[in-house]
């Protein structure tokens, strides 16, 4: 009998007991479905993280001060050496770097026309827009002249602009920024494009001011919170990290007083963590696939017993061991492959449902589908072999006598 005929006759045998067939593949359907759905959640998270970090740019490097032990009431942070001039020194000593942007941020209250709004006030340099690939939607960004002249200008994040001004065009309006115990009126010169949440910070509910203005007119300090640097290209990020580390260790006398981390290394760490998480989810779901396989074996064993007489008849008519082995194995495989296909559908639907209702990103990968289908066919073979070989080994005389 040809392969097509074997499969066709197997499908027919399965159709003749529809309820049982459906019940027996349920395990596989749920098993494959949960593998597909859970892996899609894991992959979705992985893809989202990658996308967000890539939007920021994998050539980005963060340089942060690390708290060190001090004595008594003296300032015990390395941050007192993080200054505007250090940013220029880092850039001058790291040939792989394109920009170094000093950052300082503080929580402040924005007041406009009797309304107010809590926002993070971020002191930046003009390069910030290039480094973060973040452009104003209307108006302009901070300029070098603003820094030089300590101008009281502010660029609003998209959400801040909407919340504070509503329909009114904010450009040219004055807001009062109240932070660090001072109230400074500032002129709105621009509104940034919407960017959304990237990790812990939401770009859209921040406002941007010249860092010099923030340091001297609001906070009254000379030190900055951190640096964000960008390498000439993503490929040069690693070299840049080495150069910064080398320079700062020499400059600050110790490598324990600062931390340099590239977006690329962050991306690698997160991707591998989420990868592990995905594999784990998939494996847990894989166990249910195994349970589904046992269900198929159970049904196949019942089926072989029930059809003992049929096996006897087929043997009397000349069926060899291999013929019966093929027949019952085909039934088990058809069962599990149909179960697998339905499971892929269920998993896909489940993944769409998660995306829609739980608002989590999901990604059904073709490889997960392929693996799940191959696996379920494999389950059919593994758990079909034993019942099929029982059928093949039956003594025709005994089988024919079976009622």
């Amino acid at each position: 009998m040809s392969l097509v005929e074997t499969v066709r006759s197997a499908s027919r045998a399965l159709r003749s007991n529809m309820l049982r067939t459906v019940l027996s593949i349920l395990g596989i359907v749920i098993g494959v479905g949960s593998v597909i759905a859970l892996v899609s959640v894991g992959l979705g998270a992985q893809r989202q993280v990658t996308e967000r970090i890539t939007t920021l740019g994998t050539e980005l490097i963060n340089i942060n001060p690390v708290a060190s032990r001090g004595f008594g009431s003296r300032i015990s942070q390395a941050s007192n050496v993080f200054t505007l001039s250090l940013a220029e020194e880092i850039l001058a000593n790291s040939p792989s770097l394109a920009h170094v942007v000093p950052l300082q941020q503080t929580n402040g209250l924005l007041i406009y026309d009797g309304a107010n709004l809590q926002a993070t006030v971020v002191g930046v340099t003009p390069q910030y827009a290039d480094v973060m690939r973040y452009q104003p939607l209307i108006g302009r960004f901070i300029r070098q002249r603003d820094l030089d002249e300590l101008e009281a200008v502010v660029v609003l994040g998209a959400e801040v602009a909407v919340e504070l001004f509503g329909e009114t065009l904010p450009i040219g309006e004055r807001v009062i920024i109240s932070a660090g115990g001072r109230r400074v009126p500032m002129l709105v010169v621009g509104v940034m494009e919407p960017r959304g949440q990237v990790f812990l910070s939401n770009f859209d509910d921040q406002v941007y001011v010249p860092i010099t203005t923030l340091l001297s007119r609001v906070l009254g300090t000379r030190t900055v919170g951190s640096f964000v640097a960008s390498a000439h290209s993503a490929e040069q990020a690693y070299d840049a990290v080495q150069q910064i580390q080398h320079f700062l260790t020499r400059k600050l006398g110790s490598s324990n007083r600062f931390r340099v981390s590239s977006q690329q290394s962050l991306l690698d760490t997160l991707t591998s963590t989420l990868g592990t998480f995905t594999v784990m989810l998939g494996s847990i779901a894989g166990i249910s696939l195994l349970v589904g396989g046992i269900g198929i074996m159970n049904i196949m064993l019942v089926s072989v017993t029930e059809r003992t007489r049929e096996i006897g008849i087929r043997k009397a008519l000349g069926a060899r061991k291999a013929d019966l082995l093929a027949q019952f194995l085909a039934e088990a495989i058809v069962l599990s492959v149909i179960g697998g296909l339905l499971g892929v559908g269920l998993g896909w639907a489940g993944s769409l449902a998660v995306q829609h209702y739980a608002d989590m990103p999901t990604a059904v990968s073709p490889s997960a589908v392929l693996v799940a289908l191959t696996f379920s066919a494999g389950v059919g073979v593994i758990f079909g072999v034993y019942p099929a070989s029982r059928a093949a080994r039956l003594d025709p005389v005994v089988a024919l006598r079976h009622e």
Partner: protein
Amino acid sequence: MILQCVGLTKSYRMGSQEVHALRGVDLEVPEGSFMSIMGPSGSGKSTLMNLIGCLDRPTSGNLFVRGSDVSRLSADQLARVRNREIGFVFQQFNLLASLTAIENVELPLIYARVPARERRERAKLALERVGLSNRADHRPAELSGGQQQRVAIARALVNDPAIILADEPTGALDTKTGREVMSIFQELHSQGRTIILVTHDPEVARHAERIVHIRDGKVERIEEVVAA
């Protein structure tokens, strides 16, 4: 000789007891003959039928089908002999309920690896010979007992076997239908088929040319049937 038994014995172990079902059977079946095997239950007649049908192997002795010894063949080799040389007709018809009449008739051809188109043609012809071509696509449950047995006979014929081996073929049929089925066997015999009929019914057995009486695992006597 199309079939020859030489000193066939068959013993089983039933617990600690050794049961000798056949104690040395010698039998010759000439080509084109019609023979009945009769005997009371427990006589060994079923065991003999299983051996002749190549469903089982003898404990000792030899069985020749068309001159070749089949008594020491492997299970798969025996399956091949059954497929090519033996056409079974059973008391309970033994059709597969999920298949149509013509598909049931095709089964032996499937195991003989006959291509699908030729299979269909030959199965059609076999059904025609038992007068059931108009029921080809019916399932066994939609056929009467007599029709089912005719499908079974078509299935036995389809591979053109050396011997048609019928085990109580009228046992599940009423007298009239039984007679119709027997007339098919008569007709097949007249066309030169070799037929072996296993029965306990003397009336049925008399359709054959010779009746082999089995008792206590041996051939008791061979009776020539005088045409009425």
